[in-house]
Structures are given as C-alpha cells and as structure tokens.
C-alpha cells in the first residue's frame, strides 16, 4: 500500500530543512512559497527519506481569489506519495517558477496549465500553447472564461432548482 504523507507532515519536514518555505497546510497538501519552490522541490526529490523522483501530476486550479498549482509526487523506490501547492494571487499576470529543470516530466504538464489556465511558468524551456492555437484569446479553464448559463458568476443557476446562495468554502 502506498504511504501517503499528509500535508501537515510534509510541511513540517520542509520547514525543518528550509525554514520559512511553508505558507500553510491542509490534510491533503502543503502550500509552499513560490520563491522557495525550486529549493523545496530539489529537497523533496533528493532527500533519502523522501525520494520523490516521479512527478505524478501537475495541474492548476482557479480558486477565484488566487490560482493554485498542485503537484502530486510519487516515490517509486519508497512507495509513498504526497502533494504540494503553490499560490499565486496576481490574476492579470500569474507567474510561478517552473519545475521542469527538476522533473523533466513537468514539461508538457506545465505547457498544458499555461495553455488552459494562463499561468506563466518562469524558466520553462519551451512555454507555448499546446492544445489551442497561438493567438487564441483567453484561458478557457479560468472560472471567468465564457460564462454561459450554468456559469459560476452572477445570476444564472447551474442546475435547475439549485439554491442561489453563495457556496461556502472554496466556491
């Protein structure tokens, strides 16, 4: 069975080695500061007790007030998993350091996140649109893109009869 290292535990481990790198933690993931990301990722990859040499998944989430880039990491040698996140509050020009130099497997996944969510990964060797064509207007996976009936922003209900009260938590 894969051992899942909870967000709080991984946050503690990171904080012990790189003080000031952790911004917060939830049970699923630890949030790290963007300017320390490269340092944290190198530590997670090379630490003999963590050995997260395999980047399972990289994706971005539009949390309305901020963007979140989520990294799911796997250690094949030690059979364990964890997740870290980075927050970016600038909606106009979101920039997050690239982890492609650390895990080459992030290459296409960062391009996808750039293409659909518009997050610029600084230091990426070849950041271009991947599914959409160059010159496509907008970033489709953002919550404010093409809000038709059922969109998340004012007035329109997504499902018949759903209450119009604003949703709690992340919504």
């Amino acid at each position: 069975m894969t051992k899942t290292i909870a967000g709080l535990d991984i946050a503690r481990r990171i904080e012990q080695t790189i003080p000031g790198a952790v911004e917060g933690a939830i049970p699923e993931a630890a949030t790290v500061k963007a300017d320390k990301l490269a340092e944290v990722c190198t530590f997670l990859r090379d630490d003999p007790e963590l050995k997260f040499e395999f980047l399972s998944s990289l994706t971005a989430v539009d949390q309305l007030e901020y963007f979140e880039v989520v990294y799911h990491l796997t250690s094949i040698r030690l059979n364990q998993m964890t997740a870290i996140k980075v927050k970016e509050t600038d909606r106009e020009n979101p920039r997050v350091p690239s982890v492609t130099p650390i895990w080459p497997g992030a290459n296409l996944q960062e391009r996808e996140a750039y293409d659909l969510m518009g997050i610029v990964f600084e230091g990426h060797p070849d950041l271009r649109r991947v599914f959409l064509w160059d010159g496509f207007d907008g970033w489709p996976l953002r919550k404010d893109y093409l809000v038709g009936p059922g969109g998340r922003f004012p007035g329109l209900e997504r499902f018949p009869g759903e209450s119009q009260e604003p949703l709690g938590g992340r919504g």
Partner: protein
Amino acid sequence: MTIQAEPFVVNLGPQHPSTHGVFRLRLTLDGEKIIDADMVMGYLHRSMEKLAEERTYTQNIPFTDRTDYLAAMTGNLAYVIAVEQLCGIEAPERAQWLRTIMCELQRIASHCMAVGIFANDCGAWQTPVMHMLRDREKVLDLFEMACGARLTLNYMRIGGVSRDVPTEFMPAARKLIKELPKKLNEYEDLLLENEIIVERSRGIGVLTPEQAMAHSVSGPMLRASGVAWDIRKADPYAAYDRVDFDIAVGVHGDVYDRFVVRLAEMRQSIKILEQALDLIPEGPVHAQLPTATVQPIDQPVAPLAIRPPIGEAYGRIESPRGELGFYLVSDGSPAPFRFHIRSPSYINLTPLKLMSVGGTVADAIVILGSVDIIVGEVDR
C-alpha cells in the same frame, strides 16, 4: 568536396496512419537523421475538463469513456475511485471483483490493439493486427453482455457498477480465457522473433530507468525500462490485493522491450482473470450512498445529485497505458469545482524528442507506436 545540406522539415500527420489518430509530429531532418522533433497536438481537444466542471459527478462518467476510448473501463474506474475517495464511499465486494474482471479484460483488449498496430508500424502490414482484432472482438462481446455497449461502456458507477452481469457472462468469460493462452502462443510465435519487428525495434528509442522516472513515464513504457512499478501492486485498488500476479519488466528500455512487456502483461491479465472468476462472491453490486452525499435539489421533482463534502482527492489506477489519475476538487456543490485528468498517453509523450533525436524517420514511427498513444486521451 563537402555537400552543403540545409535541415528540412517533414510533417508526420496529422492525417497519417502511423500517428494513431490526429496527431502531428514535425521532424527536422538533416539528411535521414532527426535533429529535432516537435509535437503538435490539440486536433481532438474537446475541453473535457471545462465541460465536466459544469456537470454533475454522475453525468461526468461518460466523458471518461471518451478520453481513452480503447480502455473505457479503466477510464471509468479511475474517475469513480476518485469520487469515492472524495465522498468516503466503498463499493461492495462483488462490485470490486467485477471491476477487477472488467479492467483486466479491457487490458487484454487494449494491448491486443497496441501490439497489433505496433506490428503494423513495423511493416508487418495488417496480418497481425487482424488476428488481434479478432480476439479483441471477443472481449468486446463480453462487454456487450455486461452493459450493452462495446466501446463507450459507461459501466462503472459511483459506489459500484451499473448492473450485475447476466448469468451467461461467467461461462463465456471462462471459455475466452481458456482460448486466449493458445492465441497468445500464436502471437508470440508469429512476432517475438520476427525479423521485421526485431530489426526495426531492438535498441531503438532507449530510455534508462532514471530517464523514464524523471520524465514521469508510466505503465508498460516505465516497466520496459526495468522499473517494476505497477499501481495494481504498489497501491492496490478494487480486488487486486487478493489476486496473485507478477509485474512484467523489461531490461533494455527499448521499443522491442515495450512490445514484449505488453505481450507478457496479457498473460498476467489472464492469470488474474482465472483467479477472479473463481473468487468472485455473490452479493450487491452497488453501495447504498450515504444520505449526506445524495441530497435532493430543492425542486418539486427532485433529481438526486451526489454532493461530496468540501475537499479534494487524487484517484489513480494502472490503465493499460500507465498511471491514469483524476484530481477532483469539490466545493460541496453537485458539480466538481476542478476536474483534472492526468492522462498517461499525454505524459508518456514527454520524452519523445529525447528518444527520436539521432534516429531516422523510420525509427520515429516505431517509437511513436511503442508509446501507444490514444489521441482522445492526449488531447482530452
């Protein structure tokens, strides 16, 4: 005298049989040698992630058929496992075994296609693939028996499977897995030492274990590089912790080993099926969903919708192509707030340039064939 030659660009695809769908590869060549390979994707992009964020959790299951359309069962399962993690639901025992049986049948069907088309790419034109399509049809007949569909199956449900299999299913499945080893012997006799395949694929497109792991390559491609990593063993889901099987591992990490690993995995799938058909218990195939997650939307004719609690989950399984993961974020509403597919076809393409540069155009075709991409899953 030296001949001055300028590099020139060859477009492979998007409409070309060797690209397995609408996928385009721009090769920059110096004579016959590849000096750069650029992938152009998106011809089949349907923005599934955006679509799924506007639909309920149950309505999203058919989308997962249409990403990896050669392995709809595993697509379904990865998604429902992620939703079950989010809601804290566990499927009943019989459903877990049915899932295992269906996924292994799907793996056989998918690998039949992968191996057959790969032989096609090598130049063994059409004969092997026809043999394999013949056997894949028999698996599809079983699926038709179980859920009425052959390709887009939509069989798994959150908390179980859509319906129990009919009484004829088990004898038919037993008959098929009795026949299949003979067919596999036939394939192995036909292909394993086939001059065409060996010459075209040995030592081509080599990935070392370190390179494969660093490039997030998963599935048969990773195992062909000698890394014994299989989520069915490492992080068992469904009923895989109760069956005995081996991980097929390659040695050289070249195109030939990927092909051999796929053939070996079909044998292991038969081994799993033999055990699963004996061990499957009777019982319900669908869990009672907790009332907190199924709430009527306030309306006279209230449709039921699953509302997972606020949170997030990453569910992953071993699909025929590698680690298929679904990352879901719930805000407590009937639709996922974020729906992300970690698709193995797409991510396995990452080292394509690394593998092709230095080879010839003919090598690029077999390398792409050995990745076994499904463009529906690459572009989503």
